């Protein structure tokens, strides 16, 4: 059973048969009682929102491919490491589903393929994996890039509710990185503030709209 499937029934009832994206948003946000019925008008999702969400789903789809390649390489020989990578692969699949569903909610066409441009850039590193440490280093790199990328998207959405959904994923990518880093002798929490220098710009690798 995935985390998407374990959401509170109350939340699911409130949204009826709608998408995983809405369900995760409900779980990520606090409860909203009747006394809170608001009148604030939020902006409707924009084309830029849809582009960000499509970029995000393409990157998590790529992370799934990276983990599958690593796990299938035969270079991961430590059972606990293999279990860790398998768990993270499943998380990325759920993240990709979330972003794809959010894209549909925002009126866009979900992008469900691994990001082609970033994949091309990563391919030499994937091909060069020759041992468990190299595999972990690549996994760490992609987790840090994803964490920085999702952080960089915050504040850029027209529909601000996507900020919470994006960082509910970005926080998990940071946790992945913090687990992987010490396995190859790197610090789990190197900085007081996460930078965004390695973030991938929205729209990278997507076909022109």
């Amino acid at each position, binding site marked *: 059973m995935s*985390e*998407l499937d374990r959401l509170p029934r109350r939340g699911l009832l*409130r*949204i*009826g048969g*709608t*998408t995983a*994206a*809405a369900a*995760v*948003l*409900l*779980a*990520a*946000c*606090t409860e*909203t009682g009747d006394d*809170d019925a*608001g009148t*604030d008008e*939020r902006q*409707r999702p924009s084309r830029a929102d849809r582009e960000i969400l499509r970029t995000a789903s393409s990157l998590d789809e790529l992370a799934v491919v990276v983990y599958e390649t690593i796990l299938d390489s035969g270079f991961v020989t430590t059972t606990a490491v293999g*279990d*860790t990578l398998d*768990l*993270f692969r*499943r*998380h990325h699949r*759920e*993240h990709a589903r*979330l972003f794809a569903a959010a894209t549909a*909610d925002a009126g866009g066409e979900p992008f469900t393929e691994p990001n082609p441009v970033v994949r091309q850039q990563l391919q030499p590193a994937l091909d060069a994996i020759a041992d468990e440490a190299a595999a972990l280093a690549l996994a760490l790199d992609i987790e840090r890039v994803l964490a920085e990328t999702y*952080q960089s998207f*915050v*504040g850029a959405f027209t*529909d*601000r*509710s996507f*900020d*919470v959904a994006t*960082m*509910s*994923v*970005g*926080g*998990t*990518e*940071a*946790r992945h990185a*913090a*687990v992987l880093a*010490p396995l190859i002798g790197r610090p*789990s*929490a190197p*900085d*007081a*503030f*996460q*930078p*965004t220098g390695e973030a991938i710009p929205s729209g990278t690798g997507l076909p022109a709209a």
Partner: protein
Amino acid sequence: MDEVVEERRGLAPTRRRFLQGAGIAGLAASALPMASLSGPAFAQEAGDAAITAFAESIELAIVEAYGQIDVGLLTPQLAATVAAFADHHREHATALGEAAGNAATGEANRELLEDLDGRLARARDEPAVLELAFSLESSAAATYLFALGALEARGALELAASVLPVESEHAIVFGTALERPLAELVPSFVNQDAAFKPDSFPFA
């Protein structure tokens, strides 16, 4: 589909709840010049200032709590980790205080420290210290996700988004030292369940 859109709009009440405990009413009278006390721009600036000031108070409370830990109970490596993370929280507090402007108090959240008193007193061995630190960091990370649903100005959002991952990393370090199961340490999605909230921990 309309229902989905309306549910997503439900983030607005989160801002109201956050502000109810964050002293926004008093802030309006004292923190900003009269010329700016109207319109959506004021509401945005004042609300964000109250939220970042609350976060500042939480960060300073964590710094103070870490200062009360008997590091002699810890291995040298973990003692160094606690010190390093306390420095991170101090830096967060400084940045949040600057973002909060006149709303910043520069004071640790007293309600949170009182809440922690008993737990600090009981932290008489390494596992107990780690449990406390893990709990604090997990709640801090959740607090920033909560804040992201309430903040409006881009700068404040970006600041919260740059801190959340770091608190998450801290939690992983302490949780790993506690040998917590990986699936518990790293859920598929971060949530707000353990967030510190202003109505539970009001600040001056």
